[in-house]
C-alpha cells in the first residue's frame, strides 16, 4: 500500500478513492459495536463503579481514607489532576495550534485528540473536588454574588485554577462540538429512528450550504485562535499552584514552560496510546497512517528533550542556590525515600524516548504504543515526584514524614482512567471519531472512476 500526498500536503491512501468511502468507513464505527468494544465498555463501567464508590466512601468517612497526612497534604489526587490536565493538552494543540499552522498531518487524528481533551479535562476537573475535605462547600471557590460579600481570595492560585480549568473545559468543549457539526449531520443522514432525531438536534440543522460552510469556517478559525493561548495558559496556571508556593521543589520560575512541555509530551503520548488500538479495532489503517504516528513521535521526542532539560536545570539550580532546603529537596528526590519514583520518571521521560530518534521505531506502531505507555507512566510519576517528594521533606526537618497512598486513593486514581475510558468509548460509538469533512477537504477531488484496464495502465 503506497501512501501518497495531495497537493495540499495531506496524507492520502490509495484505498480511499471516493469521498463517499470516508463517510462509509468512519460512520461504520458508529454502527453495531463488536465484542471487543463491549468488553472494554463493560470493564470501564465496572471501573467507573469503583471510582464512584471509592469517592462516595471518602465523602462519607472523610479524607482520612486516603493516605494523605502531614506534611504531605497533596498526593495521588493532585498528581492525577495534573496528569489529566496535561493529557488534555494534546487535543487542543493538535486541533487548534496545528490547524492555525496548517500542519498537514493533523486531520485524521484531531477529532480523537479533541475528544480526549474534553474527557481528560472533565476527569481532571473532578480531582480538585475529590481532594478537598468538604466537597459540599467547594462552590465557595467560585465568585458568586452573595449577601455577605464573601468572595474567593483572588491571590490564591487555586482560584486561578478554577478559572483556568473551567475556561479551558468550556472552550475545548465548544471547539470540539463545533467541529463535529458537519460530521454529525452526515451521521444523521444515515441514521434512523431515535438516533436520527438525536443527531438532528446535535447537528443544529446542518444542511451543508455554502453559507453554513462559510460561517462554520470562520467560527472554527476564531475558536482555534481562542483555544491556542489556553493551551499555554491552563497548564501554566496549574504549574503556579506549585510555583507560587514556597515549598522547595515547587517554587521555581521554570515551572510554567516546563509544565506546558510536559503536558504536550504526555498528551501526545496519550493520543498514540488511544489511536493505536483504535486504528486496529476499527480498521482505520487507511486514515491513521504511519506518517501520522511518525509526526506524533517526533513531537514526543522534542517535548521529551524540553522536559529533560527542565529536570536537569532544576537539579542544577538547586545546587547553585546554595540553600540547604533546596539542595536537600533535590538530593532527596534522587536518593531519598521516593528515589524509585524519581528514577521511574527519569527513565520513562528522559531515556525511553531516546529510541524515538530511530525511524524504525517511529514507524513501528507496536513500539510506539509501548513507548507511549512508558511516557504516560513517566509523566504520572513526574507529577508524583513534584507533589510528594517536595512536600515530604520540607523546611522543618522535625516535621518530615512519609506518605503512602491508600487503597481508596489508588482506586480513585485507577478508576479515573476507567471514567475517562467510559466517555471515550461512548464517543467512538456516538460521534465520528475521525473528522469526515476535514478528511474530505484534503482528498483528491472526486473524478469519474477509471476502468480497471486504465488503472492497470496507470500503474505500469
Amino acid at each position, binding site marked *: 500500500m503506497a501512501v501518497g500526498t495531495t497537493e495540499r500536503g495531506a496524507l492520502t491512501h490509495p484505498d480511499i478513492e471516493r469521498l463517499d468511502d470516508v463517510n462509509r468507513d468512519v460512520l461504520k464505527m458508529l454502527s453495531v459495536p463488536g465484542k471487543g468494544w463491549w468488553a472494554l465498555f463493560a470493564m470501564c463501567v465496572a471501573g467507573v463503579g469503583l471510582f464512584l464508590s471509592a469517592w462516595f466512601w471518602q465523602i462519607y468517612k472523610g479524607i482520612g481514607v486516603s493516605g*494523605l497526612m*502531614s506534611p504531605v*497534604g497533596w498526593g495521588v489526587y493532585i498528581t492525577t489532576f495534573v496528569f489529566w490536565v496535561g493529557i488534555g493538552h494534546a487535543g487542543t494543540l493538535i486541533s487548534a495550534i496545528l490547524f492555525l499552522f496548517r500542519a498537514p498531518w493533523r486531520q485524521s487524528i484531531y477529532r480523537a485528540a479533541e475528544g480526549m481533551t474534553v474527557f481528560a479535562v472533565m476527569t481532571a476537573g473532578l480531582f480538585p473536588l475529590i481532594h*478537598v475535605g468538604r466537597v459540599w462547600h467547594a462552590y465557595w471557590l467560585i465568585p458568586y454574588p452573595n449577601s455577605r460579600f464573601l468572595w*474567593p*481570595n483572588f491571590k490564591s492560585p487555586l482560584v486561578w485554577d478554577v478559572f483556568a480549568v473551567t475556561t479551558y473545559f468550556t472552550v475545548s468543549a465548544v471547539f470540539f462540538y463545533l467541529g463535529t457539526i458537519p460530521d454529525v449531520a452526515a451521521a444523521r443522514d444515515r441514521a434512523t429512528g431515535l438516533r436520527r432525531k438525536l443527531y438532528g438536534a446535535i447537528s443544529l440543522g446542518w444542511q451543508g450550504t455554502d453559507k453554513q460552510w462559510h460561517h462554520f469556517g470562520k467560527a472554527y478559525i476564531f475558536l482555534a485562535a481562542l483555544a491556542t493561548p489556553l493551551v499555554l495558559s491552563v497548564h501554566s496556571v496549574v504549574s503556579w499552584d506549585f510555583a507560587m*508556593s514556597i515549598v522547595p521543589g515547587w517554587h521555581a520560575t521554570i515551572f510554567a514552560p516546563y509544565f506546558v512541555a510536559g503536558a504536550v509530551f504526555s498528551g501526545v503520548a496519550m493520543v498514540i496510546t488511544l489511536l493505536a488500538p483504535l486504528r486496529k479495532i476499527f480498521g482505520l489503517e487507511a486514515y491513521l497512517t504511519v506518517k501520522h504516528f511518525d509526526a506524533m513521535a517526533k513531537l514526543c521526542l522534542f517535548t521529551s528533550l524540553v522536559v529533560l532539560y527542565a529536570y536537569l536545570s532544576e537539579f542544577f539550580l538547586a545546587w547553585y542556590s546554595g540553600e540547604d*532546603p533546596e539542595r536537600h529537596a533535590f538530593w532527596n528526590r534522587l536518593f531519598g525515600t521516593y528515589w524509585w519514583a524519581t528514577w521511574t520518571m527519569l527513565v520513562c521521560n528522559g531515556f525511553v524516548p531516546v529510541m524515538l530518534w530511530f525511524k524504525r521505531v517511529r514507524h513501528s506502531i507496536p513500539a510506539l504504543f509501548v513507548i507511549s505507555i512508558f511516557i504516560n507512566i513517566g509523566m504520572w510519576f513526574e507529577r508524583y515526584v513534584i507533589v510528594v517528594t517536595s512536600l515530604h521533606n520540607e523546611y*522543618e*526537618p522535625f516535621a518530615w514524614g512519609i506518605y503512602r497512598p491508600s487503597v481508596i486513593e489508588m482506586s480513585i486514581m485507577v478508576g479515573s482512567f476507567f471514567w475517562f475510558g467510559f466517555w471515550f468509548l461512548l464517543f467512538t460509538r456516538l460521534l465520528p471519531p475521525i473528522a469526515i469533512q476535514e478528511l474530505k477537504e484534503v482528498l483528491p477531488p472526486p473524478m469519474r472512476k477509471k476502468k480497471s484496464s486504465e488503472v492497470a495502465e496507470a500503474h505500469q
Partner: protein
Amino acid sequence: MTDGIKRRDFLKVLGASSAGATMTGCGPSEVEKLLPYVVQPEEITPGVATWYATTCDCPDGCGMWVRTREGRAVKVEGNPEHPISQGAVCLQGYASLQHLYNPDRFAGPMIREGDRLRQGSWDEAERLLSAKIGQNTAAGRDVMFIGGHMGPTMGRLVDEFLGEVNGSRVEYHAVSSAPLREATRLAYGIDELPRYDIESSDLLLSFSNDFIDEGSVEDDRGLSRMHSVDDSGHTKGTFVYLGPRLSTTGLNADEWLPINPGSEAVIALALAAHIADGDTAGPYASLLETYGIADAAVASGIDEDALRGLADRFSAAERPLAIGPGVGGHHKNATAANLATLILNDVAGAKGVTVHVGGGATAASAPFSDIAEAIERMARGDVGVVLVHGANPAYSLPEGSGFREAFGETSFKVSFASAMDETAAMADLIMPDRHFLESWGDSKPREGVHTVQQPVMQPVPHFDSKQAGDVLLAVASHLGADLGASTFYEYLRAPHQTMHADDPEGFEQMWREHLRTGMFGMGMMGGGRGVDSQPVELRMPDRPLTFDNPSFDGVGDLTLIVHPSPRFKGGEFSNSPWMLELPDPVSKITWHSWLEMNPVTAEGRGLREGDIVTVASEYGSVDVPLWLYPGIREDAVALAMGGGHTDMGRWATGQGVNAMDLLPVHVEQPSGALATLVTTVTVTPTGERRRIATIEGSNNQRDRGIAAAVAFTDLGHSEEQHSDGVGHHDELMELQGFGGVQPVDAHDGDPTAYPLPGADHGLYADAHEGPRWGLAIDLDKCTGCSACIVACHAENNVPWVGEDQVVMGRDMTWLRIERYYEHVDASHASHLDVRFLPMMCQHCGNAPCEPVCPVYATYHTPEGINAQIYNRCVGTRYCANNCPYKVRVYNWYRYTDENVPEPMNWQWNPDVTVRTNGIMEKCSLCMHNIRDAENRAALEGGREVRDGEVRCACESSCSAEAIVFGDLRDPESRVSQIINSERTYRVLDDLLNTQPGVNYLKKVTHHDVSEGH
C-alpha cells in the same frame, strides 16, 4: 475507627429508619431540649467561668485552680499563689480532667457474683463490707488497708478506722523514693526526704536522677531558673548529668557523663574524697580515704581527667548540689548511692545551702518491703479483708512478688478504684471513689504547705461514686464505731472547727477564705523552702552499706534500665488518651512502648529502628519495637513503665508492654526499696517490624538554625557572636505592588516596628494601631517537659487521633516540642547539646499560608494573629503545604465525634469551637482568652488590656517560665522586654521572610557552638 456494624448500631439504624418512615420533617436525629436556667444558681453566670481552688492528689500536692463552666470542670491551672505549683501543674495534672470524665469509671458499687461483677447500691455495698469485717474480726483475722498516697486527714481517718477494726495500714507506691529517705536517715538521723534547692544552685550534678520526668514542677522551674542565663547575661548555672541514659532531665544537661550503671556511689565518694580536706567528711573521712578518682574512673568508665575536673568545679562552686539516683536508677546499692551524694553535698558545703534536711516531707517514700511483708501475711492467710485504695499493685509489682496469688487467695478483697484496674479486676467488692476534683480533702507535702482539696463540681452524674472517706465513716457506723463525724467533709472541718470553737462565725469566714485560696493558713509563700528545722551533722550509718558497683542479675549482655514514664509515671495515668497521644518528651513516641537502644549497639546486631525485638530476662520477656537513641550507653537498653495494662479501661488495655514483667523482686538494702536497675537482658529480633507511632521526622536540623544556640562566652558581644545556623543578615528583597522590588529588613528586632516599614504583610494588615500579639519563647529555659501540649489540648478542644493515625503522620497537636540532637555522645564524657523547641503556629506577619487559601479561611487579623475560620475552610490543605513550620493540622476524620465518648466531651471548653471533619486548624494564640480579656476590659470602663492579663494555655502551663505572651508593639510589655535581647531570633525568618510573631531566644550553651557540631 469502626469495627463493622455492631448490634447496637444496627438497632439504632433500624429505629431511626422506622422513625423516619413514620415522621416527616425530622431535623437532627436527637432533639435536645435547651432550657435556660429558670432560677439561676448564684455562682453561675452562663458564659462566664467560675474558678475553684483545690489541690492535686499526687504526693507533690500542687495547688490548682479549676475553671468550671456551667457547672463542669473544663480546665485545670496551677494556683499561682501556691508555693509549689506557682501557677503551673505537671502534665498529669492537666490530664486529670480526663480521669474525672473517664468513661470507664464504674457506674456504681460493684459486687462480685461468681465470675462477674454486678452493680449494687451503696447501702448494700457498705453493709456487705461491714458484715465481712465483722465476720473477719470474729474469725480473728486481720483487716488490711493497702493505700497509695493520701492527704493527712484521709490518712488519719484510715488509721482511726483501722484502729476500730483492728486493721493495719500498708503504704504502697509504684514509684517510691525509699532509698533517698533511708539514706537521709542514715546520714543525718532524720527519717524524711531532704529538700534539694535546685533553683539556687550554680552547679548541679544529677546522678541518674530524673526529677523532671518524675513530674516535679518545682524542680522543673528550679532547673530552668538555675540553668538559664539571667537577665544581665552574666550568670548561668551548669548542669552535669551522670547516668547511663539521658532522660528528659538528662537531655537538659550541659555535659553528660555516660557512667556505668550503678557507679554513682563510687563517683560521688571519689568526688567527695577529692574535695574533702581534714575532717569535713566527719565520720566518713576514713571511708573517703579508700576512694580515689582513679577508682571512680574504673568503676564508671569515665576518664580520670573528666572526673577530676568535675570534682574541682564542684569544689569551687558557690552553691553546688548533687542529687542521688531516683527511681530510674534504683539499683542494688541505691541507698548507698544516695548516701554518697549526701556525703558529697556535705563535704562540698551544700548542706544548708542547697540541701535542706528536715522539712517534713515523707510522701511516696514507703519501701517495697512493707508491701512484701503484707503479701506474706496475705499468703499465710492472716488477712481476711483487704482494702486497696489509690494503688494498683496487681499491675505495678513484678510477677515474682506474689501479690496476685496472695491477694487472689484473700477471702474478701475490696477496691476503692474509681475505674477498672488490674487490682480492682480481682476484687470482690468495688466501691468507686470519687475523683479528687469531686472530693473533699487536704494535702501536706511538707511542713509549711497545707492545702485544701474541695469538689469543683457536682460529681459526674454518669457514675454513682462515693468518696472513700465517706464510705469508711459509713462502714464504721454500721460496725457501731463513732469516728466523730458522719461525712468526710465534717471530719475534715472538725479539727479547724475545734480550734475556733469560741467563734463559729469567724470560723465560717475563715473556712471560706481557706476554700477561696485553696490553702490552710496564710503567709504560705516560702512554703517550707529552705527550712532547716534543726542543724544536722553527718552520722555514722547504723547499717552496713556497700558502695561499690552493684552486680546485675542474669546472663544477658545488656543492662535493662526501667524508668517511670514521664507520661504514665508508674502506670496509673495510662488510661488517658491525652497521655497516650502525648509524644514522650525523649522519644517523641506516642501510644505504644518501645525499647531504647544505642544506634551503635543496634548496628552491631543488625537491628533497625522499628524492628520488634524480644527482650528477655531470666524473669520474663516482652516483645517491643526498637527505637534507636544515642542518649543511652551502648551496653544498656531502657524500657519505660506504664504500658502493658491487662485490665485498665478502653485505651490502656493491651497498649504496650509492662516493664515489670522483666524484673525480679530484688529488695534493695537497707531501704527495702524495689530495685529496678537490677537485671541484664538479651535482645533478639522477632523478624517482625512495625511503624513507630512517632511525631519525629528527623532529629537533625541540618544547620538550618531552627533551634538556635549561642555560646555563653559569646553573649554580650553580639557583633562577633558565634551563633549557628542561618546567621547571615542579608538584605531581603520583596515585591511591593507596582513599586518594584525593594529591600526589606526582615531581621529588625525592634518590636514596635510592626508591620515593618514598607513591607507587604499578607492580608488585612493595614495601618492598625492596636496590639500586635506575639510570643517570646526562651529556649534556654524550656526543659521539654511537654506539659504545655496537654494544657493546649485541654484549652483548645484538640482531639486525639489514635495510634494508627499517628503512625500515618496525622497527629493533631497544635503545639509540638521538637527535639534536635546537636551533640550526643554515649562513648565518653563530653558536652551535650540537645535542643528542645516548642513549635506552634508562628503567626507570621507575612504568612505563606494566607495568600494561598482560596476562600480566606485563613487570614491575618489586624492584631497580628494568623486566624483560622473553621467554618469557612473547604479543606484544600494548600495552607498546610505552604506552611514552612508545618504547624497546621487537619481533621482527616470526625475525630471529635468518633473518638470522644460521653462524658469525656464534658471537658470541652465551650469558648472554643469543636472542629469537624475536613477542615484545617492550628494554634490561635488562645484567641478566646484575648477576647475574654478585651470584653472584661471594655466592661471595666474601656481600659486597655493589661500586660499579663491574657495568658495562653502553653504560657500558664510552663513551669519553666519559658513562654510569655503579650503585645509586641508595647515596648513596656513583658514580651517586648524579653525579646529585646541579642539572643532573639525568629525561625526561618532569614530564609523566608515570614516575619513570625513568635520570637525565640537562643539556647545558651557552655561550649562553643560553632565547634559544637
